[in-house]
């Protein structure tokens, strides 16, 4: 059958790697992604392993790279769109010389970047300070220039001012953050009580706040005061509010001089700053070019060193011994990889491998392509297959979309889904494969699954005769109205009229493909459809479960457990068939044998079934076939006896096989009894669980019907020119609701229920899912995660 039916054969190999060529051999194996290394040094602390210093070195380099990347993100102009590009072709794991070169260069770059950044930041803050000073001088110029001379000393003021040391007018000028202005002003007024004059002017230019880096309009303030004590108070308050105060000379000429000096200095600093920026951008550009290759190389080196840490040194310390899981059909490839590694390192002595017997269960490996990987991941979300167990993913390729389609059946919706999937399949660019949007990746990886679901939905929709909730009349209907001979008075008198199939000519044969379109127009369509869909669900369920039970035969035969075939599989099958297979037979017989002529006396299958269990008999329930009364006890007895028998025999057989080891006979019997009860009750509940196929298809049909009647039909019955505008608007609403509710919501719901049916009802019959995956040492997975 190939790779997907059962997991591949995996064997344990022991690799003898010569010390000189160990690094190259492991890196060759990493490029191929072939084997999974086992840890041979579990008792050793991670700090005491042999190659820990190399790993540390790689980690330090990675910290440097992280710093470089951070700087690129912070300062590169124009900024990078998206993450750093992946280098192609990817570089190989570096030899020791190359690694040292990378280390030196990256550290030098990092040091230079740090220096330049520091310089730039200090230049920037200087520039800000100078600009603020200049702003202060410019803004306060009109204030002081138009100042009135101090008032002439009069008798009252002279007395007051005698108490002060000096009566000279002093200034404090500076800038304050604009948000602090009201509080600042209020505090100044309260503290100094009118002995100061404060003026606020907003600066024209936006300058940055040193701590946060955002640009604000600083407020220039000029405080004029008399007296020394006031001066102290004002200075303290200014310090408290983190203002920048500048020396403010009294005379205009001095201020002019300072202003000119400031302008020159600002020009100088701006030039130096732009040169620094230019150099910084150069460095960053170098980083952008070199960084991707370095990251990949160092990641590969670190991975190889980590793997070498897992190996144990041989007694003579000349070679390393490694244990790995390798797929049996790739052993030759392993050999050639070892030879290649030896050749690259220039060593004379070959490395070789040796096959070991596997302790315990090997890991499972499935080779999937882009089509089958979606289905394999569906199964693995439940549990990874045990080694060499039947893989349900092969069957899930068809049964999952089919069960989905039974619940979703609608031609129009299926068509939309299939078209969306086809569009996704066409989007085969690497950007989409490696996209960082998780939701898109989820849908993209399931594109073939969605395509199959859409195609099957078109088929089941055609059979349900639903297309956006309307019926398609491909063939003429099998129901005819003329033979009923209704007169016009009958029509006017009764609102509802029922077609009677027992009148000749009314029903002329079943519709050849699907459900008759006449049922769509009927009021009692649910009575017919419910009966049809319920029976369809039970039939599908019983057949699906029988298939699952039969698959366990392959598991038993592979492991040689022939006793289980007779003692577990056959009783299970017999039980299932004698109860539910019999039910299926009754359903089909009723469909074939009882027609409109006998509709009064048609038997009720449910009552028959219940009576079979209660071993009772209802007099007025016609038997489906002659001798049914005698068959019932036989069927019930068969089913109950054979399960008990199977249970006892299995317990006995287990006892015989394990008589050497100590065990508890009662425990084995108990286990088997529990398994039997679980299976029997499980059969009944699982069969009933398949009725969700009916429930969801009913919900879908009703939802799309409601959407049509309440949304689209209103717009289609609108007349005139206004109707066309209304139609356009209402159609967009209809389309939006169809996609969001019917496609997305119902689709997810049907997906979930189909998944549950597979996981619980189908897989539980034969699948244990207790294995673990082979996780090969591969560089591609490391590079993807960068």
């Amino acid at each position, binding site marked *: 059958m190939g790779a997907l039916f059962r997991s591949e054969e995996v064997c344990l190999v022991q690799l003898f790697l010569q010390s000189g060529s160990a690094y190259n051999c492991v890196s060759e194996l990493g490029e191929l992604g072939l084997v999974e290394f086992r840890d041979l040094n579990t008792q050793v602390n991670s700090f005491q392993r042999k190659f820990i210093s190399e790993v540390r070195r790689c980690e330090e380099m990675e910290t440097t790279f992280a710093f470089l990347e951070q700087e690129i993100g912070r300062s590169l102009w124009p900024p990078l769109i998206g993450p750093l590009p992946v280098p192609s072709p990817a570089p190989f794991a570096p030899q020791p010389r190359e690694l040292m070169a990378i280390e030196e260069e990256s550290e030098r770059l990092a040091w230079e970047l740090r220096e330049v950044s520091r310089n730039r930041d200090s230049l920037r803050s200087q520039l800000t300070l100078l600009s603020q000073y200049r702003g202060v001088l410019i803004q306060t110029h009109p204030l002081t220039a138009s100042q009135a001379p101090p008032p002439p000393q009069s008798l009252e003021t002279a007395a007051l001012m005698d108490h002060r040391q000096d009566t000279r007018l002093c200034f404090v000028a500076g800038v304050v953050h604009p948000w602090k202005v009201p509080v600042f002003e209020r505090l100044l007024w309260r503290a100094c009580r009118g002995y100061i004059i404060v003026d606020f002017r907003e600066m024209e230019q936006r300058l940055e706040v040193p701590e946060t880096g955002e640009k604000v309009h600083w407020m220039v303030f000029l405080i004029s005061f008399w007296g020394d004590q006031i001066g102290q108070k004002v200075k303290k308050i200014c310090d408290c509010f983190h203002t920048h105060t500048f020396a403010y000379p009294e005379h205009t000429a001095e201020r002019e001089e300072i202003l000119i000096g400031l302008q020159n200095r600002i020009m100088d600093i701006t030039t130096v700053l732009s040169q620094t920026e230019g150099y910084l951008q150069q460095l960053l550009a170098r980083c952008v070019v070199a960084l991707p290759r370095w990251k990949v190389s160092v990641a590969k080196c670190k991975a190889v060193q980590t793997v070498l840490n897992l190996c144990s040194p041989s007694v003579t310390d000349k070679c390393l011994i490694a244990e790995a899981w390798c797929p049996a059909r790739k052993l030759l490839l392993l050999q050639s990889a070892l030879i290649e590694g030896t050749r690259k390192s220039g060593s004379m002595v070959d490395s070789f491998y040796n096959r070991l017997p596997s302790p315990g269960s090997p890991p499972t490996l499935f080779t999937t392509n882009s089509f089958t990987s979606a289905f394999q991941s569906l199964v693995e979300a439940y549990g990874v297959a045990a080694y060499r167990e039947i893989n349900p993913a092969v069957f899930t390729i068809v049964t999952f979309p089919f069960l989905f389609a039974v619940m979703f059946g609608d031609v129009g919706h299926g068509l939309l889904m299939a078209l969306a999937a086809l569009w996704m399949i066409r989007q085969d660019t690497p950007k989409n494969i490696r996209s960082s949007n998780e939701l898109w990746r989820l849908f993209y990886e399931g594109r073939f699954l969605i395509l199959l679901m859409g195609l099957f939905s078109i088929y089941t929709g055609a059979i349900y005769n639903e297309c956006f909730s309307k019926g398609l009349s491909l063939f003429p209907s099998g129901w005819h109205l003329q033979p009923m001979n209704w007169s016009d008075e009958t029509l006017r008198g009764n609102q509802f009229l029922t077609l009677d*199939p027992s009148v000749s000519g009314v029903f002329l044969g079943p519709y050849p493909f699907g459900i008759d379109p006449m049922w769509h127009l009927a009021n009692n369509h649910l009575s017919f459809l419910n009966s049809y869909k319920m029976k369809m669900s039970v039939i599908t369920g019983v057949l699906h479960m029988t298939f699952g039970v039969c698959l366990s035969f392959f598991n038993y035969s592979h492991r040689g457990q022939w006793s289980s075939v007779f003692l577990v599989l056959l009783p299970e099958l017999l039980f299932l068939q004698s109860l539910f297979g019999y039910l299926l037979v009754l359903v*089909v017989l009723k469909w074939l*044998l009882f027609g409109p002529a006998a509709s009064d006396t048609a038997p009720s299958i449910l009552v028959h079934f219940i009576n079979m269990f209660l071993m009772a008999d209802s007099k007025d329930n016609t038997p489906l076939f002659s001798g049914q009364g005698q068959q019932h006890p036989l069927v019930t007895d068969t089913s109950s006896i054979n399960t008990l028998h199977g249970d006892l025999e299995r317990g006995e057989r287990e006892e015989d096989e394990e008589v050497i080891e100590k065990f508890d006979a009662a425990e084995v019997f108990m286990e088997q009894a529990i398994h039997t009860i679980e299976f029997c009750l499980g059969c009944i509940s699982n069969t009933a669980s398949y009725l969700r196929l009916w429930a969801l298809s009913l919900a879908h049909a009703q939802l799309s019907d409601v959407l049509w009647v309440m949304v689209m039909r209103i717009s289609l019955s609108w007349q005139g020119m206004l109707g066309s505008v209304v139609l356009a608007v209402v159609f967009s609403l209809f389309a939006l609701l169809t996609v969001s509710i019917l496609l997305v919501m119902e689709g997810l719901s049907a997906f979930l229920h189909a998944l549950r049916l597979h996981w619980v009802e189908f897989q539980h019959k034969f699948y244990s899912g207790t294995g673990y995956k082979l996780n090969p040492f591969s560089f591609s997975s490391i590079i993807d995660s960068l």
Partner: protein
Amino acid sequence: MVYHSFALPLICFTTLWGLVGGVAPFFVPKGPNRGVIITSLILTAVCCYLFWLIAILAQVNPLFGPQLKNETVWYLRYFWE
């Protein structure tokens, strides 16, 4: 007055799905995916045939008929027949 036979669609669809499930597997080219493709073809044929068969068996002997509104009856009498 179109009489739908039961036998003709039965023969048609049985042969169709029989071809898909029984004959097409022999024409699948050899390759690593041959087993998967054959399994898928057989399962598709079985599932689709069964689904169609259940639909037609449920309608071959109806026990009751559709109940229509009088307006629908009037419309159908003049447009469908």
